[in-house]
């Protein structure tokens, strides 16, 4: 990864950040201390990403930065300038969304956007060989309703090409 040629200097007062989110360039005026999670939800009105623990423990806020699944609560928005951010709003009729619906892989649904953002990457990473492996590599996404068996079923079905 090559660094930018010019140093980026922001804050402490609010600054206009140019963020690439779901392929669109969006401007958010926030302070450097603003998390990506709060910026998405409160400033950019992208409320699909959920706030659970706000300390990196629950995975409800999982998004992709430069194609990797990360927790947006421990990511600063200012650190995402020049990166590509993808949220649940960036997935449209994705097979994983279809599978979560048809498998009833949720009860309250609060953790679901994070589960789906994590599950899509899980398949790309190649760690969905069996249920034990799926459970291990999805352990960063907690489900208070304990819909885990159906979440694993949804992931298996997408892995096996049952939702195109």
């Amino acid at each position, binding site marked *: *990864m*090559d*660094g*930018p*040629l010019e*140093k*980026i*200097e*922001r*804050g*402490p007062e609010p600054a206009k950040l140019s963020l690439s989110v779901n392929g669109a360039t969006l401007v958010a005026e926030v*302070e*450097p*201390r603003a*998390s990506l999670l709060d910026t998405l939800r409160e400033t950019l009105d992208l409320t699909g990403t959920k706030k659970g623990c*706000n*300390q*990196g423990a629950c*995975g409800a806020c*999982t998004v992709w930065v430069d194609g*990797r*699944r*990360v*927790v947006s*609560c*421990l*990511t*600063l928005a*200012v*650190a995402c*300038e020049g990166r590509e951010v993808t949220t649940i709003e960036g997935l449209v009729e994705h097979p994983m969304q279809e599978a979560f619906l048809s498998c009833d892989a949720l009860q309250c649904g609060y953790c679901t956007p994070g589960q789906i953002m*994590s599950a899509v*990457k*899980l398949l790309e*990473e190649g*760690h969905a060989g069996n249920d034990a492996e799926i*459970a*291990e*590599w*999805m*352990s*960063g*996404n907690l489900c208070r309703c304990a819909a885990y068996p159906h979440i694993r079923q949804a992931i298996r079905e997408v892995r096996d090409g049952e939702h195109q």
Partner: protein
Amino acid sequence: MHAMSYARVGDVASALAEGADPDSRFLAGGTTEVDMLRIGVARERRLIDINDLPLNTIEDLPGGGLRLGALARMSDVAATPSVRERFPMLVQALELGASAQLRNMASMGGNMMQRVRCGYFREAGMPCNKREPGSGCAAQGGFHRGHAVLGTSEHCFATHPSDVAVALVALDAVIHLQGRYGERAMPLEDFFLQPGDAPEREHPIEHGELITAIEVPAAPVARTSLYWKVRDRESYEFALVSAAVAATVTNGVIREVRLALGGVATRPWRARAAEQMLTGGPAISDAFEAAASAELAPAVPHPQNAFKIELAKRTIVRVLERVSAA
């Protein structure tokens, strides 16, 4: 979280120049740093984002060693084929730590700098000698089931939380630092200080000094190695006890052994007493038990964590049995 300024730099020289500001702190993966800032334990007013520095390479060294750039992510190191082939316990320690998301974020250098998970360290209203020197240790009479039994002091006995640092210490890894006045390197084991009388000082690193790389020397013994983690949950939990072990056994005799413990000590704990007793001796359970007892002899238990002494002994015996049978 308090207000702060932010700078993103693209080269080491700029990072070191910015890092001279005593109110600044480097930002890498952020998994510890943003958490610490949010709960008010970190108080810096300026973050220097070093993620664009060219320090994220993972290189094979001639002869079989590794050089891990300080900004290499845990997930990338674990996925590197040569690491998987040469250092199984390093990969296992990485993949048993945190979650997939956090491993994508967390850097190797940042992992070495992560802070303890003692609940009183994280709670600004409570006495904590590490956070506020001289204020006392609320864990002594409080909740300390996860705390350390080795390397403790009356001032602090918080457990060092890293998994991968345990494997790296067993592998004689060397950490490379760069400051404004030059570069230096030291054994990774020496990078972790025991609390003693100054639990606030965790590493012999100066303010504004950067970790640039971690080097792992070639270690054929590590091809037969194991990282075993015992914890309350099956996944995504800190260790109660962990052990990194590598051994070469021929004709029932231990020719070479590396052993380090996690979850039980204030630093990644190289089990040198056990290694010394085991080397050249028979690979039998009696010898493993004797070595485990010797290693845990200096352990200092507290009411809630005394179980860790027996658990650590059993873990040592178990990993030695497994690796010597491999």
